[in-house]
């Protein structure tokens, strides 16, 4: 979850008093308040609006939403055009094509950095890396002090052993390959490069390495300080369109703190591209579609106003989209923004007069009946996790043969899907040895079974009685079959789970098919679970029962 933390003082100075009404407005803009103190207000930024991750951009967009004059409509900043004499150029070498093919760049001057602003810029970068950049995989941003760089810049991929520079906050010069194992950023993001023969680098005209994207900048040419007045900004990655927008988000943020933006010429072979590119995209919108989807009766002028509050421009049934918006894929995305501008609180909720027939799942109805029968006998229903531990499922029950289905990379010791309910019933009894007896419990739920590499999910029923004996358990199954008007058969079998006492357990069949077992639990298993009461237990697969009854 991405959070934008705003100083309360700054907010109240730029936007207005942060009272209950204002708090509500912030939430209604689609940036819910996560935390609020006397110093700070933390708002959540949803993944579709990375452009709001910098305070400057948030402030401007929110003021527009509030309808502040001069703030609505498309935001424009001036870009100084490319001047061939000044070498504001980045040459993209063919070698990057297979590693990290694209970059979008800009130069920003007239900046006054203080510690807070440096922190803010680093913060925006980090957040954009985490969100839109997909942890730097899709896109990464670099910002460099222009004073330390000799233009033009070259973006190319070279042999990692031949890359040599002092990475940011590192004591000495090392090679590109060494960065992956020695620098903290290398260890974290190294996997993004380690499978390539060549690593991408930005190199300036005096052959100085600026950075090795998406891992790390150079300490010498890639560190913003309070002395920095002019910066070179690059975004590298795999989708030029996204990179351009990412660059625009940064540019708008830097412009907000007084930066003057200069265009750069990107030489992709014979092709020249100028970035930043703030040309708004245009998308058609139909008033009918808006009103139909929202259930409103807006006029053209209404949607024009709404769109302007959300930073768009509306002209001739078309919408101009700000060049930093990454989330507008379809007309519905515009319609949502119209709804936000209209105010979610202003909609009149209504239920249409349509007739449909409600119906519960038949199997669920039968399961509920079974539960009712058992609670009628005084049994208590329990509910356990579908995931379980090897210790409970296999070791304590001493079941040697299980084909447990494992889940990958579980964050807890619960890393297999439960194979039966029985072990959970015993676990529950073991965790309640201090509670008054008798403890008579049941559970209905799914278990997972692997059959020739196919995982099957089956509804099971298990009952455990403590103290309990075979007769008592059999009485319950007899009663259940009578109430459900079906026939369970208790038969002798050689295939009884090892956790029962031999000779005091049986197989339960239904329609001549084995569906489970019933019996008294062996004291060695009770010992494993530290249960000091005799336990009778049964477990059956109720899939066929549910099918027959529904």
């Amino acid at each position, binding site marked *: 979850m991405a959070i934008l933390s705003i100083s309360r003082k700054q907010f109240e100075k730029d936007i207005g008093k942060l009272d209950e009404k204002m708090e509500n407005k912030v939430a*209604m803009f*689609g940036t*819910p308040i996560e935390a609020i103190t006397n110093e700070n207000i933390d708002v959540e930024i949803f*993944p*579709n609006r990375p452009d709001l991750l910098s305070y400057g951009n948030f402030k401007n967009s929110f003021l527009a939403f509030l309808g502040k004059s001069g703030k609505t409509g498309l935001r424009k900043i001036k870009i100084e055009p490319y001047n061939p004499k000044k070498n504001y150029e980045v040459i993209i070498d063919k070698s990057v094509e297979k590693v990290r093919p694209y970059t979008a760049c800009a130069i920003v001057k007239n900046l006054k950095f203080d510690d807070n602003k440096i922190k803010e810029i680093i913060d925006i970068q980090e957040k954009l890396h985490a969100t839109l950049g997909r942890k730097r*995989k899709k896109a990464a941003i670099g910002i460099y002090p222009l004073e330390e760089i000799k233009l033009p810049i070259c973006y190319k991929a070279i042999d990692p052993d031949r890359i040599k520079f002092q990475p940011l906050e590192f004591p000495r010069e090392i090679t590109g390959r060494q960065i992956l194992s020695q620098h903290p950023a290398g260890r974290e993001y190294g996997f993004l490069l380690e499978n390539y023969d060549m690593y991408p680098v930005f190199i300036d005209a005096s052959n100085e390495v600026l950075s090795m994207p998406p891992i790390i900048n150079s300490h010498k040419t890639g560190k913003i300080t309070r002395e920095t007045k002019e910066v070179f900004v690059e975004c590298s990655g795999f*989708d030029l369109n996204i990179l351009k927008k990412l660059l625009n988000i940064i540019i708008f943020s830097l412009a907000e703190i007084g930066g003057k933006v200069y265009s750069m010429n990107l030489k992709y072979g014979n092709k020249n591209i100028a970035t930043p590119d703030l040309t708004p995209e245009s998308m058609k919108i139909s008033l009918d579609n808006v009103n139909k*989807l*929202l*259930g*409103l009766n807006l006029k053209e002028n209404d949607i024009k106003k709404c769109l302007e509050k959300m930073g768009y421009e509306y002209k001739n049934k078309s919408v101009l989209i700000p060049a930093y918006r990454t989330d507008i*894929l*379809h007309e*519905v995305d515009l319609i*949502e923004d119209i709804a936000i501008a209209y105010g*979610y*609180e202003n*909609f*009149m*909720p*209504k*239920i*249409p007069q*349509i*007739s*449909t*027939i*409600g*119906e*519960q*799942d038949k*199997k669920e109805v039968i399961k509920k009946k079974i*539960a009712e029968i058992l*609670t*009628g006998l*005084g049994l*208590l*229903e*329990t*509910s356990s*996790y*579908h*995931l379980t531990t090897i210790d409970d499922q296999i070791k304590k029950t001493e079941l040697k043969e299980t084909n447990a289905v*494992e*889940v*990958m*990379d579980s964050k*807890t010791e*619960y890393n297999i899907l439960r194979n039966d309910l029985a072990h959970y019933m015993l676990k*529950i009894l073991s*965790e*309640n040895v201090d*509670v*008054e007896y008798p*403890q008579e*419990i049941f559970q209905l739920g*799914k278990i*997972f079974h692997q059959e020739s590499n196919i*995982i099957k*999910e089956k509804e099971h029923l298990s009952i455990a009685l403590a103290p309990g004996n075979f007769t008592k358990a059999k009485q319950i199954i007899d009663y259940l079959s009578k109430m459900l008007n079906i026939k369970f058969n208790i038969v002798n079998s050689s295939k009884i789970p090892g956790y029962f006492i031999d000779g005091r357990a049986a197989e339960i069949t239904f329609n001549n098919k084995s569906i489970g077992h019933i019996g008294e639990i062996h004291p060695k298993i009770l010992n494993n679970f530290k249960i000091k009461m005799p336990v009778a237990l049964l477990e059956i697969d109720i899939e066929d029962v549910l099918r027959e009854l529904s």
Partner: protein
Amino acid sequence: MTQNNKEIIESLSPIERKIMPYLKEQNFDLVIKHSGEDRVTALRALEFLNSKGIINLHISKKKIVDLGTNGIFYKKKGLPERQLLHLIEKKSCSLEEAQKESKLSQNEFRAALGALKKKAMIELKNGKIMLNSPKNEIAKKTLEETFIDELPLDYNQLKPEQLFALNNLRERKEIIEIREEQIIKYEVTELGKQIIKEDLSSAESLIEELTPEMIKIGSWKGKKFRRYDVISQVPRIYGGKRHFVSQATDYARKVWTEMGFKEMSGELIMSSFWNFDALFTAQDHPVREMQDTFFLNKNINLNKDIDVKVINNVKQAHEKGIVGSKGWQYKWDEKTAEKLVLRTHTTCLSARTLSKADKNKLPQKYFAVGKCFRNETLDWKHGFEFNQTEGIVIDENANFAHLLGYLQEFFKKMGFEKIRFRPSYFPYTEPSVEIDVYHPEKKIWLELGGAGIFRPEVTTPLLGKAIPVLAWGPGFDRMLMDYYEIKDLRDMYKNDIKQLRQMKLWIKG
């Protein structure tokens, strides 16, 4: 005899009458001894007499330190360290030899070694165990051995050296058992003294239990019934009950069906296709990482279960977009969609339902209630399983105002009168909305769940046409925790029988 004393005598149970003659000595152990009753029965009788004002009963507790199972054994055979000492006294041997010859278990051996090292009675040199103190010193009983001989002892009266020995032994497996013992004292009251003097034989003809036999032959006639102490506490009983989560999910089912929704059901294990791709969640979306979602290291063959047209439509929606959408602009990979996951939301059921819905029979309304999963740690506010409920409305004329109408009605039935809607984001809905409910006691807005209208990139591939589908999928656990006043998420699955027995029923609606 006063009337009062007479009634008291008539209310004495046989067991109370039986111990009455032995009360005078005011010693519980003697009462047991002379009456021949067991401890529990005698104590119950005393409690009855106490409530009748015949005696004043004082029950206090004492911590007794005694031998555990291993302790009893060691008292006979000697502590493992003594056994080890005997061995080393004969010859110094290596660690392996010592363990083998001493026949101690690995745990015992380690404990013995530790204990002797701590006392500096041995030392390890070149992997050999050597005695480190004179023989006469070794022959003496250690503090622990003396302590074991002295048990049982009152915990509160342990001397410092006994406490020291206790702490050393306590860490080791089942040598020591500390149990609580009841100390029972009483004195006979003035009233008691009078009753004791009375002739109790008149009470012997009182009817104790009315039996079917007595009713049949009429032997009760002309006799009196022993009076009961109708005020006294009776042992608690508990009824059978549904688990509280089941009670609530059953209620949710009732709410949905009342509103005309039909239940969808399905597996907990889903292909990524239904869980993510069909819901327009790009394949590089962070939710699709193992960090967040449980993957099963297994794939299914999509083409086997799913109409190839649907697969191709979904692919197109992701890659280039569909019905005027730009799509996510990347190469969609079928193999990625084939990975099996534990469903992260019940919305996957909605997607599958849409792919099967009969477009000629609209409107249709469906719901689901069920377990969902995410790869999370386990603590008071996190868990890897949660309950979700989900509803969809497929209706050519459905719109956002309708969505809010359904939501308002649904949450009202779930017991939340004051709700608010605010903008939100989900990859598969647009517009999206979050539902906050107002908590009147805590005076805060609680976030209860997301909703929205499915994006055309979701509906078109599945339905073949961009029909509006309203969808909402509130998490259920928060409502449950609020209702049952559960603070710790783990309590939802703890199966604490005491808690389950005492928990109130779900009464709503």
